[in-house]
């Protein structure tokens, strides 16, 4: 059985402190898992802030090299990808959606430049009409259209619109794997469901696997097939998403699950008060 993506005891260190200290923190500590090539799935990574989720995403995208361990995408070790043609072949099959849409778009570049660039390089669109057609198609999937986006700068769009543009852009090359780092944190519940439902249909119809990094346990529960829960760089729990989230066993996972705010004012404000009281006392 061939693997689409395999992480083999991956560890990433970052130096901390001043110029002269040799200390480092383990942003990602000995993580292993794999995705099957024949069985597209939505694989959720959840965990607290600073637990190394984005660092994992960077390594999967080849933007960071692990200090030890290997990441293998479809038979090639990602860290051995060096020259441009290899890198472009890799990018045509693995695409990212970044955490903060306000950061992911250069404020001085028009938003459509990212779309046209992708359409040109990875979808073979050569003339302007062709590019616009390809991009419009992708934008339609996320409930936008070329007419709304064309010529705009990132600050002229709302957070949710930007994030949808980012998702649409990642769809253009028809990748095998999408690494989505908190793709829905900026969008409202209704849109959130539509993006998440879109991921599901990508998996089912286009056979795309999705690494879905999120804080939102509710949507993780809702769409993912498998989940890992991370704390301080370590995977503390993993397995079938529903099973893990229904019955977490690690104390941290339990705390995380209990901390999901109930959608009811009385219960939710009580939860906040309880936690503040616990923190103070």
């Amino acid at each position, binding site marked *: 059985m061939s693997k689409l993506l395999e992480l083999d005891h991956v560890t990433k260190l970052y130096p901390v402190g001043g110029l002269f200290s040799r200390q480092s923190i383990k942003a990602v500590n000995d993580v292993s898992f794999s995705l099957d090539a024949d069985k597209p799935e939505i694989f959720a990574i959840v965990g607290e802030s600073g637990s190394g989720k984005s660092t994992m995403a960077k390594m999967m995208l080849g933007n960071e090299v692990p200090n030890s361990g290997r990441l293998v995408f479809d038979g090639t070790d990602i860290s051995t990808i060096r020259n441009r043609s290899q890198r*472009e072949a890799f990018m045509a099959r693995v695409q990212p959606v970044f955490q903060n849409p306000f950061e992911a778009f*250069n*404020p*001085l570049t028009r938003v459509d430049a990212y779309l046209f660039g992708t359409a040109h390089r990875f979808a073979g669109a050569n003339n302007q009409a062709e590019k616009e057609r390809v991009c419009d198609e992708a934008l339609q999937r996320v409930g936008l259209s070329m007419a709304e986006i064309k010529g705009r*700068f990132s600050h002229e769009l709302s957070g949710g619109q930007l994030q949808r543009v980012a998702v649409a852009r990642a769809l253009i090359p028809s990748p095998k794997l999408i690494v989505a780092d908190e793709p829905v944190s900026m969008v409202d519940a209704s849109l959130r469901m539509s993006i998440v439902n879109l991921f599901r249909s990508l998996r089912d119809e286009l056979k795309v696997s999705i690494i879905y990094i999120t804080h939102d346990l509710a949507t993780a529960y809702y769409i993912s097939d498998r989940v890992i829960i991370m704390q301080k760089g370590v995977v503390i729990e993993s397995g079938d998403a529903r099973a893990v989230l229904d019955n977490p066993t690690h104390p941290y996972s339990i705390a995380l699950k209990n901390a999901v705010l109930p959608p009811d004012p009385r219960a939710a404000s009580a939860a906040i008060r309880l936690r503040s009281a616990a923190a103070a006392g």
Partner: protein
Amino acid sequence: MFKVLRDLLRYNREFLFGSLLIAIILAVVVASYFAPYDEMMTYAVIPDMPPGSEYWLGTNSRGQDMFWQLAASMRNTLIFGIVVALISRVIAIAVGLISGYVGGKTDQAIMAFNDTLGALPNIPILLLLVFVLRDQMTWPVLALTAALLGWTHDSRLIRSVALSLRTREFTRHAAFSGMRTTQILLREHLPYVMPIVFFTTMNNLIWAIGLEVTLSILGFSDINRPTIGGMIYWANAHSAMVAGIWWWIAVPMVAVVMLFIGLFLLAMSVNEYIDPRSRLARMGA
């Protein structure tokens, strides 16, 4: 663009004053093309005439009209400065952006070379070259040499900004959008280093002009070709101060000071305009 210029002129005093100074200098430079006689020619007019209605800036002991001398010198000196600044800008931007973007070991190697080159003393190197090359030392060669010596400090500044841009998410996003490295550097990163580039261009221009003036005053350049430094060289050679022909010294001095102040003011005000933060603010971000 026109609107921007108008606003700058209207609201920015530095810009207004700076452009006035530079405009005067440019007018003089343009005038040089309409000189009534060849700028190399000597004894074309009555020597040693003080400034007056006939000869605005007087004439020198070599029988040259100071106004036309100044015009030709200003042109030559400015061209020299601009050529040096342009060549060294291209090198500084390329080295700075690439070094910062690539990072890691390559970056360290480039910066080590950069710092070594930067630590070499400029004037002695140029003097050495002048002695070695002698007659082959034309002004383009001198400009090229100066340019090769004058980029190191600025490339380091540019690199420090490029290093921080490298880690920004939009850089990665651009790469995954199929933008090639050169495109990323030129389209995404260059605007962020533009303020530094402009500011250092001004510094570099002043440095290059200063270099030219120094070498010429010492007589280490083609002394027949009129330059600001060359004017002072000839004035000294004829003991102009002793002879009471003060305007021979004063004219190039005042001109060079005007040029420096004008450049400085322009750079300051344009810098404010070109800074990405204020630019974004104007765009309404």
